[in-house]
């Protein structure tokens, strides 16, 4: 097999890039569990080499006009041929680069963040596992292979969210994440089976082939598209399966940066992008997706407006931005969606990592506490936070501005103006909550020097200070790199567009920005920032948001629109009252009862038949003659 690899450098490089993290995971899990620094070194090294391999791949293949696929036989059963392998086209290369880069940066960052944690090796093992799964997901050539890695990604996310498993809330959060995404994945699987029955294989290329998809009846098309979208709803935390993501903030902040902002939740959007030619065959499905995306985006934005916890703000913001991406894709703007995916990865990871620096220093997630304790004194995180928030809000000339404009342009091309208005509202809300967060930290009102209690600050002493310096050093570099990307990526829109367009079947998604919409959204963004400044930034400001003044709205948004309460009630009613009770009754009456009945029958039969053993001759004689009669009958008939 090696000889088959060497003539094909692309394949070799891909194989190396994809297998290194898995090797790192195995080695760390088995061999170097007790050597934390060695484990970290192995993991970071593996992902760095993977990153370089991926970059080399991109350079090699950026001009090929058609997708490259290496596939091998996997499952052959009757008429079903499922292949596994690598499918390298611009979309997958883009995603690979994204995943590899951000994994690498986050792992380097974790060297500082997770230093001293007793589960250091375990953490890096899981990080490697995740990197491996996510990268393989990006280049899967068949849906079944993608599903396998989809589940693996879910597994690593569970392991990483519940990383500090001694804390009950963390393990609960991990379980909740897993179960909710699993719900979506079940729909995904059913959709997969539908497609399998119909097509006989699950090749992504075959699915995207317009001719092949036209063979399916429209109804079947819509149903399978909706079912596959169920997986996307679960994984990308869209409505109604969105409540796991805020809870998933129990995990370490680098994990949140990697999984829940940049890569794992983007897997759903990636799948949409991948199967876009397939999905776009069904108009009704696309409309449903548009609704889901819009509802998610607006809901999550409102939830972000009233949060005190910095990670929760960012979590809801992620959900909202993913909603934006789904909206863009459902409206037909593939490039807009893909571009926003990329820029979002950069600035959201940046935001999370900045938050991580403060959490690491002050040990608290609360915005107001961070502000009061002098959070703004940390120069680099503060600056990067402002850059990241600007990207999130869509301030020019940051990358977020360009990607958001692309989305607005796509939405403007739809017939119904309600989508554009929803998008504009979303832009306003995003700008508002992003800068609310910034201003709370930047202008804290009373500083902690007034309100300080003893022993509240972070680690004190010279050793701790030295620790802080090395950690800071390691943690700041990824921040700077990501901030740079955020600043600069916007200007690469055209080359990226060309790069992605080389894929067949994608129509030109880079719409010309509608001037009216563009100016409108820019205006709304500035208005949002202004409102945030008005409420939180000025001296003597009330530091209460306009939404927070309305208690009903505040309660609604803080409780996640009572979704969690609804779910728990549903679970209680359906599962506990109905199924559990039915199962318990079934166990008691049917299973236990039938066993008891059987046992009693045996005892009774024994008692009945014991007359044979009573030693009374007559009974045995009777049985003898009865047997003779039966034999006569038998022989006569037979």
């Amino acid at each position, binding site marked *: 097999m090696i000889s088959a690899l060497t003539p094909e450098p692309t394949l070799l490089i891909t194989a190396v890039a994809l297998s290194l993290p898995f090797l790192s995971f195995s080695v760390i899990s088995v061999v170097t569990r007790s050597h934390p620094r060695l484990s970290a070194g192995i993991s970071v090294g593996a992902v760095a080499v993977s990153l370089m391999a991926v970059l080399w791949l991109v350079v090699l293949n950026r001009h090929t006009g058609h997708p490259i696929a290496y596939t091998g036989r996997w499952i052959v059963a009757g008429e079903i041929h499922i292949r596994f392998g690598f499918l390298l086209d611009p979309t997958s290369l883009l995603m690979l680069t994204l995943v590899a880069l951000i994994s690498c940066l986050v792992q380097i960052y974790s060297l500082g963040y997770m230093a001293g944690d007793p589960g250091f090796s375990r953490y890096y093992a899981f990080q490697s596992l995740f990197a491996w799964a996510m990268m393989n997901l990006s280049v899967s050539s068949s849906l079944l292979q993608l599903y396998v890695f989809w589940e693996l990604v879910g597994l690593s996310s569970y392991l990483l969210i519940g990383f500090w498993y001694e804390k009950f809330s963390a393990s609960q959060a991990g379980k909740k994440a897993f179960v909710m995404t699993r719900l979506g994945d079940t729909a995904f699987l059913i959709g997969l089976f539908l497609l399998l029955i119909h097509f006989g294989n699950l090749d992504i290329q075959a699915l995207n082939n317009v001719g092949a998809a036209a063979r399916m009846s429209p109804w079947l098309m819509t149903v399978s598209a909706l079912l596959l979208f169920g997986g996307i709803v679960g994984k990308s935390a869209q409505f109604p399966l969105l409540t796991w993501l805020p809870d998933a903030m129990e995990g370490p902040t680098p994990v949140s940066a990697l999984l829940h902002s940049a890569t794992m939740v983007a897997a759903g959007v990636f799948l949409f992008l991948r199967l876009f030619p397939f999905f776009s065959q069904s108009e009704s499905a696309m409309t449903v997706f548009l609704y889901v995306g819009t509802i998610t985006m607006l809901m999550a934005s409102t939830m972000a407006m009233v949060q005190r916890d910095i990670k929760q703000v960012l979590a809801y913001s992620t959900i909202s931005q993913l909603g934006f991406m789904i909206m863009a894709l459902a409206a037909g703007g593939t490039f807009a969606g893909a571009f926003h995916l990329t820029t979002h990865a950069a600035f959201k990871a940046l935001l999370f990592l900045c938050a991580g620096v403060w959490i690491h220093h002050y040990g608290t997630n609360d915005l107001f506490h961070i502000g009061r304790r002098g959070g703004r004194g940390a120069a680099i995180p503060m600056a990067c936070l402002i850059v990241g928030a600007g990207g999130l809000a869509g301030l020019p000339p940051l990358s977020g501005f360009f990607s958001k404009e692309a989305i607005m342009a796509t939405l403007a091309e739809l017939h119904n103006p309600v989508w554009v208005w929803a998008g504009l509202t979303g832009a306003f809300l995003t700008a508002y909550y992003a800068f609310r967060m910034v201003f709370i930290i930047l202008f804290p009102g009373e500083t902690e020097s007034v309100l300080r209690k003893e022993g509240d600050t972070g680690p004190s002493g010279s050793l701790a200070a030295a620790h802080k310096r090395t950690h800071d050093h390691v943690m700041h570099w990824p921040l700077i790199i990501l901030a740079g990307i955020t600043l600069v990526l916007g200007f690469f829109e055209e080359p990226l567009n060309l790069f992605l367009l080389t894929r067949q079947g994608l129509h030109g998604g880079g719409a010309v920005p509608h001037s009216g919409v563009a100016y409108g959204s820019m205006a709304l963004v500035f208005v949002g920032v202004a409102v945030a400044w008005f409420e939180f930034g000025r001296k003597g400001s009330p530091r209460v948001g306009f939404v927070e003044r309305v208690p009903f709205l505040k309660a609604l948004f803080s409780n996640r629109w009572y979704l969690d309460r609804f779910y728990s009630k549903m679970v209680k009613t359906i599962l506990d009252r109905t199924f559990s009770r039915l199962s318990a009754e079934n166990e008691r009456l049917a299973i236990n009862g039938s066993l008891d009945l059987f046992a009693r029958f045996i005892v009774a039969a024994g008692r009945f038949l014991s007359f044979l053993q009573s030693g009374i001759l*007559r009974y045995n004689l*009777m049985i003898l*003659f*009865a047997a003779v*009669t039966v034999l*006569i*009958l038998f022989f*006569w008939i037979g």
Partner: protein
Amino acid sequence: MTLYGAGFYLLGSIILGTAVLAVTRRNTVHAVICLIVSFLGTAVLFYLLGAPFLAALEVIIYAGAIMVLFLFVIMTLKMETSSEQGTSMGRWGPAVLLGALFLILIVFMVIRDPADRVPLETALAEPTTFGRFVFQNYWLAVEIISLLLLVALVAAIHLGKGKGEQMKEDEP
């Protein structure tokens, strides 16, 4: 209905009736006496069915020797007095049911088989012919029967001696 036929049915009813009587007598001696009558009827039936030698044997051995032996044993065991106690007419139900089932089966078989409608022709087996036939074809069986009777004799004597007489024999 010929004369023989009438005779057959008459004899059949006698045999059956006395057999039933024998089964239902509480007193064992009465039962055996009824049984003797039954066997006598059987003997005449044998004569009707063309086996005079067997009829004679039936009277001599069966009704004569075996039943008398029964009577001897009954009287030895002094059972007239105890005939009331231990011999309650057990549970007739299952037994009668079983017998009835068996009977129904036999009748059914006979009815269904057309080969059973054949009327029996009268014939007679002369004792001479019979004797010659037996000793020509079944002499081995005759020898074995006589051996069997010898064995039975020895067994009866030995078992019948009882403990007391055994001890007497063991003394030198």
